[in-house]
């Protein structure tokens, strides 16, 4: 019979569970560290996963053939043009895109439509209501073509309205400013100027953590009007373009880059991204954040492991006599080792499982109470269980060795 025969193994598991039941509070306290660790890691990772899914939904609303031009050199590429690195700081605050660039891009042969996105500083208000956490974007009539989401009521402003004070708003804006779903014909004020609501978008898929604004909270106004509003100076924070043929994304990007380099005197102080790359960048940011937080959270797993080791050491000392008796009736050192190792592993694994269940609960609460939509995936659950098992093995080994090495006579005399 092998020393780890299945019957003995089952016996060890049973004994370990009995030991846990026997000291319920102590075991729970011991598992506390692992439980907290697992809950925080799983929750963080599932939040990140949720955000990623929301972002990819948000990016889908713009179509997969969308080309984004941003100011600043936000990414570095390897020789084959794949994304090599992301410079997060460069993505913000750079101010190198101009109206001239828009004109250049519009003239690139393959480009069907190019649309500027300009952030208008200002606060939208209607009556007593103000738009909170919203943004005002000045754009051109081509925008409608780029968006997958349709205008639900009314319509987008056309080219002939490019100098008129009209606005197309997202759902949240309608709710916040007018407290109704279809406030067509009503007016809102931006920097003292009245705008007539021309259309309301249907709900955009949105995410709380993305490089793009949440269009549900956005007021779209014609480009020229926005420019006047800002005293003729507009921040071009993004130019969106679409190729005539959806399969021509890459050649179009090459042409655009060439044209822009010409006008920028050879300086590549802009970034051209295809839709999938925008997603990649967001994912990288989210992964980085998630990874950082999860790493901090994982420290509590370590602390939990130390707690288990501590309790197991106490338990080994407490049960010295038991070890002596077991050795006297013929337990080998290896079998004693197995017993105590199993106990540590069961302790941390049960802690891990409780942690996973609590994470599910936390997930549910987060979904109810916030806009975030965390997603617990199976790999995360498996990893949580695997890691807690590992913690049990790592931190259970020292106490188990201590137990196994006890001299039977000393132990019996204890």
């Amino acid at each position, binding site marked *: 019979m092998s020393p780890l*025969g299945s*019957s*003995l193994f089952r016996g060890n598991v049973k*004994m370990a569970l009995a030991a846990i039941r026997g000291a319920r509070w102590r075991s729970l306290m011991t598992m506390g560290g692992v439980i907290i660790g697992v809950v925080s890691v799983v929750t963080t990772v599932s939040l990140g996963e949720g955000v990623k899914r929301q972002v990819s939904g948000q990016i889908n609303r713009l179509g997969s053939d969308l080309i984004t031009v941003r100011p600043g050199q936000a990414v570095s590429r390897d020789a084959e043009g794949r994304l090599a690195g992301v410079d997060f700081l460069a993505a913000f605050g750079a101010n190198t895109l101009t109206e001239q660039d828009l004109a250049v891009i519009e003239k690139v042969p393959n480009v069907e439509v190019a649309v500027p996105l300009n952030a208008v500083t200002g606060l939208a208000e209607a009556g007593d209501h103000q738009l909170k956490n919203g943004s005002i974007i000045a754009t051109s009539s081509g925008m409608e073509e780029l968006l997958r989401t349709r205008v639900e009521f009314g319509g987008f402003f056309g080219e002939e309205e490019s100098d008129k004070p009209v606005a197309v708003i997202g759902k949240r804006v309608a709710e916040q400013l007018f407290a109704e779903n279809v406030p067509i014909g009503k007016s809102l004020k931006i920097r003292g100027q009245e705008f007539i609501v021309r259309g309301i978008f249907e709900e955009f898929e949105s995410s709380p953590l993305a490089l793009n604004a949440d269009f549900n909270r956005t007021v779209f106004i014609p480009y020229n009007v926005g420019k006047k509003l800002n005293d003729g100076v507009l921040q071009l924070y993004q130019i969106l373009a679409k190729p005539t043929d959806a399969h021509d994304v890459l050649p179009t990007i090459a042409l655009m880059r060439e044209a822009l380099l010409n006008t920028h005197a050879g300086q590549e102080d802009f970034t051209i991204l295809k839709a999938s790359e925008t997603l990649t960048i967001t994912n990288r940011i989210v992964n980085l954040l998630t990874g950082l937080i999860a790493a901090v959270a994982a420290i509590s797993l370590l602390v939990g492991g130390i707690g288990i080791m501590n309790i197991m050491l106490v338990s080994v000392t407490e049960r010295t006599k038991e070890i002596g008796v077991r050795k006297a*009736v*013929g337990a*080998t*050192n290896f079998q004693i080792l197995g017993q105590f190792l199993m106990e540590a592993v069961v302790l941390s694994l049960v802690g891990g499982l409780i942690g996973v269940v609590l994470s599910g609960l936390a997930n549910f609460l987060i979904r109810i109470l916030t806009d975030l939509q965390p997603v617990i995936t199976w790999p995360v659950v498996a990893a949580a269980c695997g890691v807690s098992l590992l913690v049990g093995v790592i931190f259970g080994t020292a106490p188990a060795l201590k137990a196994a090495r006890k001299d039977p*006579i000393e132990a019996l005399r204890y």
Partner: protein
Amino acid sequence: MPIVELKDVSKLYGFGDATTIALEEVSLSVEKGEFVAIMGASGCGKTTLMNIIGLLDRPTHGEYQLSGRAVAKLKNSQRSRARRDRMGFIFQSFNLLPRLNVLENVALPLAYKGVSQTKRLTQAALMLERVGLGDREYFMPRQLSGGQAQRVAIARALVNNPDIIIADEPTGNLDSGSSRLAMELLSDIHQTGHTILMVTHNPELTRYAERIVYMQDGQIVHDEPSEIGNVPRRARRIMFYKPQTTEDDDLAGVSALMNAMPGREAKAKERKPIRRGKAKAIKKSKKPKKVIR
């Protein structure tokens, strides 16, 4: 061939000046099926001897052959296996595991043997039946009386059908009734051909043994056969000796009990107080004795 053969076995503890001799060149040979009682004062090395025979301890010097095979070179795991398959331990303090029920306690040695759970519990139940505790299977050890606990311990020692049963003062914590029950049980076991080594302080128990070994200061000072049912004179003298020490004894650090041990008589006779004590003892022994059996 003797089942246990010790040749000049010594056990030392400590180093240098602090060296203590627990066993000094003890030679002992036990045949299969013998019931040996080992008597002696506390600290005379009885338990050390038992631990060495039971493969819990290793001798510092000397040779130990178990069924004709030297055990000195056995690895720890092999010694564990030998304990599991060939030894049964009965302790003074029962040493049942408090968290396992009676049945599981009895089945413990079988678990380490790798016997399947159903099989080992069945076997343990049979053994419990044999010690008369078939109705206590699912009790926890703390719910048992001392006598019952010791019978459970005996069942545990027997469950793997060992060659040698080592009982270290098995009745030390029991009242006389339970003592008798436990000893009857051991006697039955002896009848079925098991070898039993029993350490005891109580001469009355030597009644069950067929051989008595007296120990003192780590040495075997006397070894005599005895008829089952009889308490030998030597053992009885120890029993009825009333411990009494003189100032001389205290100064010498020698207990009166030791003086009464075989081999010390001559010396003890010279001392007056001791002689008085002895006279008392002899007088007492003449009274009709309560026979246990």
